[in-house]
C-alpha cells in the first residue's frame, strides 16, 4: 500500500476536533442572554415601582390623622381645602362618564364589528377599517377640544342651555364613547373573524339569514373575545384623562346626573398636580391614593379581560 499524502484534510494533525465545539464556553453568549433577561425583567420592575411609589405616598395619606380609610371610602365630599377627602365624589363622576361612554361605544362598536366582519365586501372593508383606525389615533386632547367646542354647544342647542351647562359629564361621556368605539370594534372584529368559516357555512346551509348566522352562531362563538373587548373598553374609560379634564368641569361633586358638571378621578389629578403643589402635603399625597385606586381598578379589569380570553376561548379544530 503506497502512502498517499492527504493534502486536503489530515485529521490526525488537526488541532481542531469536532468535540471541542460542545465544550467551548461562550462567555459573550451568556452575557447577552443575561442582559436581555434583565431588560425583559425591567418591565416587572416598572410595575413594582408603580405599586411601591403609589402605595408609599398613599400610605402617608391614609396614616394622616386627618383622614384615614373610613373617611376616604365612607364619605362623599372631596374638598381638600377644608380637609374633606371622600373619594365617592370623584368616583361618582368617573362611573357616570364611563357608563355613558360604554353606552355609546358598546352598541356602535359591536355593530360596526359585525358589519365589517360579516357583511362588508373586502373592498368596502379596506375603505371603512382605516377610518376607524384614524379615529383610534387621534390624541385625546383633540377629543377634549371637540367635546367642549362642538358637542357641548350642539347638546345645549338640543336640550336647552338652561338644562345643560358649558361643562357637563354628558358631552365628555359621549365623546369618550367615540374615542373607545374603534378599540371595541377592532378587538371584536378580530374575535369575530377568528370564528372558523365552517360554522358560518353550516348556519347558511340551514337556511339562516346573514343576521341570524351572525347573532345566533358567530357572536356566541366569539363571545370571549368580545367580553375582553368590553372590559378593556371600561378600563380605558376609567383611566381617560384629557377629555374629562377639558369638558366635564372642575368641581368635585357627588352626583350621577350626567347633565351636571363634576370632576373625575383622573381630571382631579391632572388639575391639582398641574399647579404648583408643594410636596408631601396632604393634598399631594391624596393624589397618589387616587392614582393607586385607579391603577388597581384598571389592573384588575385588564387581568379579568386576559383571563376571559384565555379561559373561555372556544377551541375549534
Amino acid at each position, binding site marked *: 500500500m503506497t502512502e498517499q499524502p492527504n493534502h486536503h484534510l489530515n485529521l490526525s494533525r488537526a488541532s481542531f476536533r469536532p468535540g471541542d465545539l460542545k465544550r467551548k464556553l*461562550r462567555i*459573550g*453568549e451568556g452575557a447577552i*442572554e443575561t442582559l*436581555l*433577561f434583565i*431588560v*425583559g425583567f*425591567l*418591565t416587572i420592575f*416598572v*410595575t413594582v*415601582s*408603580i405599586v411601591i*411609589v*403609589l402605595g408609599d405616598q398613599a400610605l402617608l395619606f391614609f396614616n394622616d390623622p386627618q383622614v384615614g380609610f373610613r373617611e376616604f371610602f365612607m364619605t362623599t365630599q372631596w374638598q381638600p381645602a377644608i380637609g374633606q377627602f371622600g373619594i365617592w365624589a370623584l368616583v361618582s363622576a368617573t362611573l357616570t362618564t364611563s357608563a355613558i361612554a360604554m353606552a355609546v361605544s358598546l352598541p*356602535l362598536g359591536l*355593530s360596526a364589528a*359585525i*358589519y*365589517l366582519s360579516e*357583511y362588508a365586501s373586502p373592498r368596502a372593508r379596506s375603505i*371603512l377599517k382605516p*377610518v*376607524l383606525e384614524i*379615529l383610534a389615533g*387621534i*390624541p*385625546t*386632547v*383633540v377629543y*377634549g*377640544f*371637540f367635546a*367642549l*367646542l*362642538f358637542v357641548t354647544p350642539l347638546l345645549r342647542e338640543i336640550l336647552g342651555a338652561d338644562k345643560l351647562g358649558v361643562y357637563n359629564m354628558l358631552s365628555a361621556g359621549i365623546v369618550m364613547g367615540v374615542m373607545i368605539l374603534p378599540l371595541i370594534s377592532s378587538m371584536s372584529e378580530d374575535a369575530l373573524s377568528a370564528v372558523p368559516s365552517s360554522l358560518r357555512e353550516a348556519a347558511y346551509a340551514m337556511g339562516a*339569514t*346573514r*343576521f*341570524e348566522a351572525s*347573532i345566533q352562531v358567530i357572536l356566541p362563538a366569539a363571545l370571549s373575545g368580545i367580553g375582553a373587548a368590553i372590559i*378593556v373598553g371600561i*378600563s380605558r374609560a376609567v*383611566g381617560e*384623562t*384629557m377629555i374629562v379634564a*377639558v369638558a366635564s368641569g372642575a368641581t368635585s361633586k357627588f352626583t350621577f346626573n350626567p347633565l351636571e358638571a363634576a370632576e373625575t378621578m*383622573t381630571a382631579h*389629578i391632572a388639575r391639582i*398636580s*398641574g399647579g404648583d403643589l408643594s410636596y408631601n402635603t396632604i393634598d399631594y399625597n391624596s393624589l397618589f391614593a387616587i*392614582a393607586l385606586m*385607579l*391603577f388597581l381598578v*384598571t*389592573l384588575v379589569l*385588564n*387581568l379579568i*379581560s386576559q383571563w376571559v380570553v384565555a379561559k373561555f376561548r372556544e377551541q375549534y379544530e
Partner: protein
Amino acid sequence: MTKFSYPEQTDLEKFVAWRYRKAWVWQVLFLSALLIAILSLSALILDVVDGAFGYVAYEFKNDPALFTEKPLDDLNKDELLTVLQENLSRGAYNKLNEEKIMEQRSEGELYNLVIERIIQVKTLETYSLYDSLFRKAEIEAEVAELYPDARLEFRSWLTPRFLTTPMSSRAEFAGVRTALFGSMWLVGIAIAFALPVGVGAAIYLQEYARKNFINRLIQTNINNLAGVPSIVYGMLGLAIFVRAMEALTSGAMFGVTDSNGRTILSAGLTMGILVLPLVIINAQEAIKAVPDSIRQAAFGVGATRWQTVWSHVLPNALPGILTGSILAMSRAVGETAPLIIVGASTFISVDPNGPFSKFTALPIQIYQWTARPQGEFHAIAAAAIIVLLVLLLTLNATAILLRNRFQRRF
C-alpha cells in the same frame, strides 16, 4: 294542472319574508353604526378646520397705512426692521435689541413686534369658518354695530409664521415653535430609551425564554402595562424622575443648576416607560413573523443563538420593529396627561436647548388654549391641532410606507 300547495305554505313564505326583512333592517343598523363613526370623525375634523380660519374683528390703534405703502404681509425682513427703527422710540428699540439682537430675530418675530408695538392690534371678536362663509352679511352688520372702529379681516390662524414664532401671552402673536421643539425632544428621548430596551425584551421573550413562571410573569406583566392609564405613568414619573432622581434629571450633577426636576429629560423618560410595552408587543409580533426555517438554517451551519438572532432574525424583523416604533412615537406625540403631571410649563418662549431645559409640548399648548374662554385662543388651539394631526398623519404614513416597502413574504 294546478300547483300543489299545502296549507302552511303561505305561512312559511310569510315567515321567511319576515326573517329577511328583519335581517335587512339589522344590516342597515349595523352599517349606520359605522356611518356614525365616520360622521363623528368628519365632524371632528370639520370642527377643527372651522375654528382655525374665519373672520376676525380687529381694532388698530395705529393704521398700518401710515408706515408703509405695501401691505404689511408683503414686507421682507429688512423692511420690517426699518419700520421698527423708524417708529419705535430709541429707548424701546434698544431694550428689545438687548433682549435679542434685532438682526438675529426671524421675520415672524419682527412681524409680530410691528403688530404688537406699533400698530397695537386688539382682537375684538372671532368668527368660525362656517359663519364667515355663509353669514358674511350678518357678521358685517354685527361688527359695524358693536365695534364701529373695527376692521373685519379674513384670517387663517394657521400660517407659516404660526409655526416659526415662539409662544406669546397674546393669541394674535402666539406660535407653536417652542412646543414643536419640545415635542421633538420628548419623542427623541422616549424612543432612545424605549427602542433598545423594548427590542431587547422582545428578543429575550421570543428567542431565549423558556416556558417557566418568571417568563410567563414578564409576558403577562407587559400586556398589563399596556393597559395602565397614562396618568398613572405621570404619577410614577413625578415621584421617580422629578423628585427621587432630581439631581440627575435637573442636571445638577452636570453643573446645570437653574432648573428643578421638571425637565424634558424627566418627561421623555416617563414617555419612554409609557410606550415601552407598545414597543415590546410590536417587536414581538415582528420577531414571531420570522419563519423558523431561517433560524434552523442558521443553527444548521453552526451559528450560536445570538449569531442567529443578530444576523438573521433581527434583519428580517427590522421593518416590523420600525413600524412599531413609529406607532409608539405617534403615541408619545399625542399623550398629554403625563406631561401635565410631570410638570410641562404652560408658558415658555425660548427654544429648549438640551435635556435639562424646561419644556412645553404641542398637546399641552392645545390643552391650555382650549381651556381658556376667549375665542381667539380656541382659534389658535384649532390651528395647533391641525399641526399636531398633520404630524401624526406623517408619522403613520411613514409607518405604512415602511411596512409596504420592506415587507417580505416567506
